[in-house]
């Protein structure tokens, strides 16, 4: 198992894919900082809710692109056929899937830490430079950082599971994009009492956002965790049964 895990971690570091996705997460984070921090009026920026969105801006980009990174860790093996050498060296498919899921933990962790360092640092600088008081306690900041790491790690693991289910890289990426920007957003806007239980909104809650109708961070963690377990269970069934 440890050999397979070390192999999976090396795979993530030996193509440019992971770095490019991290770069995209950083770009989205910078965009979020610009929107939430620089374009806000002073009165808006003084509000706690706005400061949460600004300082926690790293969680959106990190979550989405860590999900893609987890996804591609599986689908690229099918796209390029490397799944065959992978399984010839470790034919126990559950071991390979487990190693990819465990590798998603540091993968998501790095995405969250880089993006959160950026949004916390830039957010605090903007709040201070524009002369509005910080409405968040040290505990709030810690909760934002911890929530971002937890939601991003679960996002990367969900990505691995979805990749193992869909296998086709383009199809899987499109499914996640369509889900994130259509299903999740539309259902939450139309029927928030249901939409807030979707993985995307549960992740937002876990990341510490305070938007109306969202679950509490603890509930968000439980709901996103349950989604992850469900997708992993489905991925195990598909992985066991399907020919390569």
């Amino acid at each position, binding site marked *: 198992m440890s*050999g*397979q895990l*070390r*192999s999976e971690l*090396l*795979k993530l570091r*030996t*193509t*440019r*894919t992971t770095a490019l996705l991290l770069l995209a997460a950083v770009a989205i984070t910078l965009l979020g900082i610009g929107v939430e921090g620089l374009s806000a009026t002073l009165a808006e920026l003084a509000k706690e809710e706005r400061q949460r969105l600004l300082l926690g801006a790293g969680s959106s980009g990190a979550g989405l692109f860590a999900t893609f990174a987890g996804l591609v860790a599986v689908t*690229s093996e099918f796209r*390029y*056929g*490397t*799944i*065959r*050498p*992978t*399984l*010839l*060296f*470790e*034919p*126990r498919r559950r071991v390979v899937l487990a190693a990819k899921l465990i590798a998603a933990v540091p993968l998501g962790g790095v995405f969250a830490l880089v993006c959160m360092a950026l949004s916390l640092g830039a957010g605090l600088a903007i709040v201070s430079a524009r002369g509005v008081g910080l409405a968040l306690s040290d505990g709030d900041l810690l909760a934002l950082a911890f929530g971002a790491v937890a939601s991003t790690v679960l996002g990367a693991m969900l990505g691995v599971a979805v990749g193992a289910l869909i296998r086709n890289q383009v199809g899987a990426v499109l499914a996640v994009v369509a889900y994130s920007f259509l299903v999740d957003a539309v259902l939450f806007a139309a029927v928030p009492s249901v939409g807030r239980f979707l993985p995307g909104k549960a992740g937002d809650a876990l990341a510490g956002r305070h938007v109306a109708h969202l679950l509490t961070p603890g509930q968000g963690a439980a709901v996103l965790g349950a989604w992850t377990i469900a997708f992993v269970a489905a991925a195990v069934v598909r992985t066991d049964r399907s*020919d*390569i």
Partner: protein
Amino acid sequence: MAPVLSAVGLTKRYGDVTAVSGLSFELEAGSVTGFLGPNGAGKTTTLRMLLGLAEPTDGSALLFGRRFAELERPATRVGAVLDSADLHPGRTGRDHLRVLARVARVPRSRVDEMLALVDLAGAADRRVKGYSLGMRQRLGLAAALLAGPELLVLDEPANGLDPEGMRWLRDFLRAFAAEGRTVFVSSHLLAEVAQTVERVVIVDHGRLVADAPLRELVADSSSLEDVFLELTAEPSR
């Protein structure tokens, strides 16, 4: 001792289509055996079942007396290349081997040895997307040999090799078998096979049509091509 490889009544059906039907044969250690058949005869499907990538509908596929997935450290027993394109274009040749070396728990020096063996030491730190087909073939072979397997399974290894590469591969396979190790190689290049293998297993429409030493099969001074075409001829022709 269990045979190196044995298929017993191996069958694979996809819905109404039977790709492999009741295939039985064995390989003995230290031989080079050719696995021949027209396109679509079920060669690759058979290899996938032997290597645990596809589940047989019926029958069994055993390597060293066990299912492939039940082998301890399988890469030290069986090395295989099913498709020379099974490489990530954005990864370097060396990194492709390092990724697998970690699973097989072989030392890093073994990666350099294999790169030298297949004459890729100079290109090892270039990304695979810049490799020729022959270089990809050799990198795939280096991966298969990484953990020093006793059995080497190759699916159409000569595709894309130039005459020099062909001769190198032929000499390599003979030397590999001379050490008491076993080679099972599928191919449709009959002239090449006739120069390399000692035994042939021929399939057609998923069924075994011949399993014999090459010398016996072409005993009456006919060529392997004549024998092959006769065995795999459509009844109507």
